[in-house]
């Protein structure tokens, strides 16, 4: 049964309220019934005692007083009857019980406990044991509990009507209110429907401060992120084209100039050297771009091998030694975990090498080949590699953009680079369920933390 949420809410509320009302009313009715019965029995007992004293004890003075009291203060109850029976040894009360239509246990209770009560339909019986001068008697007074029946039936009717009316009112009110609560939700639904990839700049109007407002704000945040991400993608394409175009233009230009007239062989050699270096640069860029694209769009790693993270450091140091023989990169193993198995990670060796070497190369480049320290340690469930340099640092205002492809900070003008290293590193780490964190101080240095989960 596909019920709308607001109908469900209203129905639940209605059922709860009705149940509560019914329980309450049942409780009130039941307790009133019990109380009024016990109250009535007490009245009957009083009359029994008075009757006994006036009839069985023939003391003239007290009889008169009692009769007066009886006349003035004890009203005659409906169908009031009085009976008394002598209690003798071995009396079975058979006759008495037949006469009044009461069970014999009633009488035996009077004898043993001194009082007893019984109800048959509307008629209530109360009996007391009275010890008069002429022996023990069982005095029984009966009357119809007419008033209380009236009271109880009135109460019952009132409660029933009250419950019905209140329940219906509750149902109507809760249906209306539930509907009202959902109006802003319906509004959000219709507004969001308008937003498409072409109109991502649209936002919801946030007017409320409650949960609905939170929802609207969160939607707007999500739209901000989507818009940024779409813009980044667009930027990527145009940036990539631009970066690829630059060396190509240089190659074409160089070739055209060289071919424009006859030249000496040494000039051709020069030109070819320039073309070669530009072509290599182009090759570098396309390779990095390919990696970036591949690692950016997949979630799964291919070639999942088990490797030791400290070996990774040595491998990257080796690569760096080949590329920059005069490098001052040091490896600090002072905080390496005692158990080398805690340095074991699962991943793609080549990709991790690229990720780490990008960071190390940046460290060397932007510090003009000063000391770079690679440290490694293990925390609760991650291997942490820290690369620290004493370079030009990253301005605080730009540190949020360092992962944007092709982004280069303002102070990197003197240095060569495409701005692809860090985005690639981050993608690779993400693929390995790890993370990267960069902190930096301009002209003091940069610290890059790479984290990879330990293989369990």
């Amino acid at each position, binding site marked *: 049964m596909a019920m709308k949420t607001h109908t469900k809410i209203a129905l639940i509320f209605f059922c709860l309220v009705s149940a509560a009302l019914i329980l309450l009313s049942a409780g009130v009715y039941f307790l009133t019934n019990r109380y009024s019965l016990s109250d009535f029995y007490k009245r009957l007992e009083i009359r029994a005692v008075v009757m006994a004293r006036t009839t069985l004890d023939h003391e003239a003075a007290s009889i008169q007083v009692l009769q007066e009291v009886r006349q003035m203060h004890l009203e005659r109850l409906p169908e009031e009857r009085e009976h008394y029976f002598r209690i003798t040894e071995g009396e079975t009360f058979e006759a008495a019980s037949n006469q009044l239509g009461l069970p014999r246990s009633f009488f035996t209770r009077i004898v043993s406990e001194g009082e007893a009560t019984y109800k048959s339909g509307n008629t209530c019986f109360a009996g007391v044991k009275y010890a008069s001068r002429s022996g023990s008697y069982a005095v029984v007074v009966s009357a119809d509990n007419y008033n209380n029946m009236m009271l109880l039936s009135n109460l019952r009717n009132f409660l029933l009507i009250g419950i019905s009316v209140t329940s219906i009112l509750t149902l109507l009110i809760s249906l209306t209110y539930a509907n009202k609560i959902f109006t802003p939700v319906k509004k959000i639904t219709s507004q969001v429907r308008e937003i498409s990839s072409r109109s991502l700049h649209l936002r919801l109007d946030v007017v409320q401060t409650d949960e609905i407002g939170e929802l609207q704000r969160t939607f707007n945040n999500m739209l901000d992120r989507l818009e940024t991400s779409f813009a980044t993608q667009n930027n990527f394409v145009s940036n990539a084209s631009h970066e690829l175009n630059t060396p190509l233009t240089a190659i074409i230009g160089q070739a055209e100039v060289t071919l424009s007239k006859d030249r000496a062989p040494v000039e051709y050699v020069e030109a070819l050297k320039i073309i070669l270096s530009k072509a290599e640069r182009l090759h570098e860029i396309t390779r990095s771009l390919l990696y970036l694209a591949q690692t950016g769009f997949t979630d799964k790693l291919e070639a999942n091998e088990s490797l030791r993270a400290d070996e990774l450091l040595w491998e990257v140091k080796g690569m760096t030694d080949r590329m920059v023989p005069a490098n001052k990169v040091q490896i600090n193993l002072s905080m390496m*975990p005692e158990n080398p198995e*805690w340095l074991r990670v699962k991943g793609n060796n080549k990709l991790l090498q690229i990720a780490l070497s990008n960071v190390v190369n940046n460290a060397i480049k932007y510090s003009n080949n000063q000391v770079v320290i690679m440290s490694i340690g*293990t925390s609760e469930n991650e291997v942490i590699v*820290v690369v620290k340099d004493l370079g030009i640092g990253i301005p605080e205002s730009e540190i949020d953009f360092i992962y944007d492809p092709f982004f280069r900070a303002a102070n990197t003008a003197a240095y060569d680079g495409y701005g692809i290293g860090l985005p690639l590193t981050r993608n690779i780490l993400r693929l390995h369920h790890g993370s990267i964190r960069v902190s930096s101080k301009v002209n003091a*240095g940069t610290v890059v933390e790479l984290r990879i989960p330990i293989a369990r």
Partner: protein
Amino acid sequence: MVQNVLIPTDFTIESLNLLKAAATMNGRPKSIILFHAIHLSDSITDLLFFSKSKFIESIANEDFLTAVKIVRNRYASIIKSVEMDLFVGRSSRAFENFVAGNAVDLILIPDAYKFRHASDRSIDPLGYLHRGNKRTRVISWKQNPDLSAADTLSEVFQFDPGLK
């Protein structure tokens, strides 16, 4: 026999050099208590809802806890456990009871390092720690002026515990 070592902390990574020193002192396994001294509130309602663990959670940041883990993993066979506790007493007698209650065998204090206030309730633990005490050892290390790594995780790699 596991030695119980009491080490004061201000939840900075530099103060963890005491932990490193404890791990490299002698080869015996150790159970470490990192303690921080604070001044408890005077208000009854504050005291009713005060929780040591919540307080510590609020001042111990991620980097500090990660650094502790790194040091523990480095000296896994020596450091059997690291507990973080608060000392909330107000007198040296109370501190002596704290030490006795934790069955402390060894207390490490820094030579030149100044503890910072990790919270506005914090007190300098050096007020309770005396060099002359038979259980105390003084540890010194060179303060590093390198600001670019100040109190970041990379600081944990900086100091070699070989420095005495």
